[in-house]
């Protein structure tokens, strides 16, 4: 494989400046004259390199700085210091040039023109990215097969459901066979079926064309299925950059059980829960945590040290359980352990 890096990120820092709004009338008046600046360090001194053809999971809790990093890579945000290079370009200096070679999905917000029909959107994208006729035809046939686009081809983007919109956005980002795909939460709010299709498309693109892909998600199974390498950031700082295996070894035994409970008195439940760690075999404060909110009890524990049955027995015998599910530990919990 080419030794040249596809993406280089060096000491990347972004500090936002916001202004405090004064409280009340006096405060508002005061802030008209003297505004108090607050500096938000969204990204702090982050460095990493990405090789062509890698699929990277870029993960972190809400507000960690993931989207901010991607915005700098797509050229719509200037770094405060440090630099980013994507392919041959510094994105924020050559935004238009860079744009020709990348595909972008921001799951939170469509990147398609709001009031155009989906069909016309693709016709326009074909023109602006100068996609050859035969490649366009084969891409559209593929997208139609995997995303079932024809179902809503005639609708305007504004009227699409979340899942349809995300399928359209993803197809649009891949149409011109970009060298790099930036996917910021491409599976947010989707059902399992659609998630599965999207993962398959991402894998296909990578295998067929060697597309380099940077992906953010809060869904651990996206990472498990797609990425060999993950980069974890928290509060703007780089926490981990390496193989998924190391993480799996360290946290692979972490499990989470979520119970739906019915109860009248939350404090009574809390009191009973305090006896969970002392009374279940193997439970220690450092391998078991729980939290209760709005009828949901979440217990995180290490499967190697604590038996699932012990926890199940305790909860089932002390509370009225309506439902429960056992899950792998989620990304937020992993980040907290670092």
């Amino acid at each position, binding site marked *: 494989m080419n030794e040249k890096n596809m993406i280089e990120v060096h000491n990347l820092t972004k500090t*936002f*400046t916001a202004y405090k709004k004064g409280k009340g009338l006096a405060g508002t008046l005061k802030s008209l004259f003297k505004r108090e600046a607050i500096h938000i360090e969204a990204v702090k001194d982050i460095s990493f390199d990405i090789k062509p053809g890698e699929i990277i999971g870029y993960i972190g809790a809400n507000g960690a700085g993931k989207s*901010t990093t991607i*915005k700098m890579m*797509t*050229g*719509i*945000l*200037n770094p405060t210091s440090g630099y980013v290079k994507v392919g041959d370009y510094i994105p*924020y200096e050559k*935004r*238009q*040039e860079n*744009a*020709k070679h*990348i595909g*972008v999905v*921001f799951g939170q*917000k*469509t*990147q*398609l*023109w*709001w*009031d*155009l029909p989906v069909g*016309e959107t693709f*016709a*326009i*994208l074909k*023109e*602006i*990215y100068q996609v050859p006729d035969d490649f366009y035809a084969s891409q559209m046939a593929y997208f139609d097969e995997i995303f079932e686009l024809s179902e809503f081809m005639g609708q305007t983007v504004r009227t699409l459901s979340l899942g349809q919109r995300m399928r359209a956005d993803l197809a649009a980002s891949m149409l011109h066979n970009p060298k790099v795909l930036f996917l910021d939460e491409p599976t947010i709010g989707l059902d399992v079926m659609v998630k599965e299709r999207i993962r398959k498309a991402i894998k296909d693109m990578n295998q067929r064309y060697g597309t380099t892909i940077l992906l953010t998600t809060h869904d651990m199974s996206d990472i498990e299925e797609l990425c060999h390498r993950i980069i974890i950031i928290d509060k703007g700082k780089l926490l981990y950059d390496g193989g998924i295996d190391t993480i799996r070894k360290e946290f692979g035994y972490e499990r989470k059980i979520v119970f739906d409970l019915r109860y009248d008195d939350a404090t009574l439940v809390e009191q009973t829960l305090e006896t969970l760690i002392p009374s279940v075999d193997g439970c220690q404060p450092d391998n078991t945590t729980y939290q209760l909110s709005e009828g949901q009890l979440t217990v995180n524990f290490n499967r190697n040290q604590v038996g699932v049955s012990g926890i199940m027995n305790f909860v089932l015998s002390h509370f009225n359980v309506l439902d429960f599910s056992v899950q792998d530990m989620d990304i937020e919990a992993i980040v907290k352990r670092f």
Partner: protein
Amino acid sequence: MKKLLRTYLPFTKAVMQGFMAYRMNFYVYILGELFQTVVLIYIWFAIFSSATSEVIQGFTFKQMVGYVVMSTLTSMLIGNEVHWDISQDVKSGRIATNLIKPVNYQLLKFFNCIGNIGINLTFLFLPLWGGYTIFDFISNGVIPNITNGLLYLVSVSLSALILFYINYLFGLAAFFIEYVFGFIFAKEAILKLLSGQLIPLTFFPKGLFNVFKFLPFAGLVYTPTMIYLGKFSEEDLLFNLGVQAVWVLLLMALTQLVWRKAIKRLTILGG
């Protein structure tokens, strides 16, 4: 050229299709404009009946009616929504859509603007102008002058460009200030006066008129209307068309400059 049209014409079509959904708003707004026109004609009627001479500032009453009608039609024809659209794009963050793609935002908005003008032409200008011309022929025996009509087309095209650029600039203001609404409303009021939509610019005191005729606003309504009515001498005609053309070029350059500043600001502050 063909590629350009294939890329951007859908943005014109989208505006025209969107119009079907909002046409009631459109007609209510137009009703207000027409009411204003009737009031204006009535005021001129009162002025002319109490005046000592038949001609005021070179206008007879009939010519003045012609001015009021054609200036209203002209301003209806060139109107666009570009300023509102841009400020929406900026506020909602949807502007990013256009920044992560190799697409020309100004061209895109220009083709939106053509959509606005297409609607104005088909649903307003042509029917109202036709009605007025027939009425003028039946009651006054007036047949429109072909040369003036063609020159009007040239001039009104420049007007449309000038208004596009002005509105584009006001739209870009959303990058710099939080409340563009006030600005845009102030702009509309000032335009009404300085473009000659309310009264011919020649009615202003000489000193003011000599300033106003050099401003881009005169080129919006006053110039094409006077051309249509054949009220310009050859010299005036060339001068006023020249002023329009120069402003088109100046505004074109200015929009590039402001766009660059706006993007710079956006990429530093964050959307």
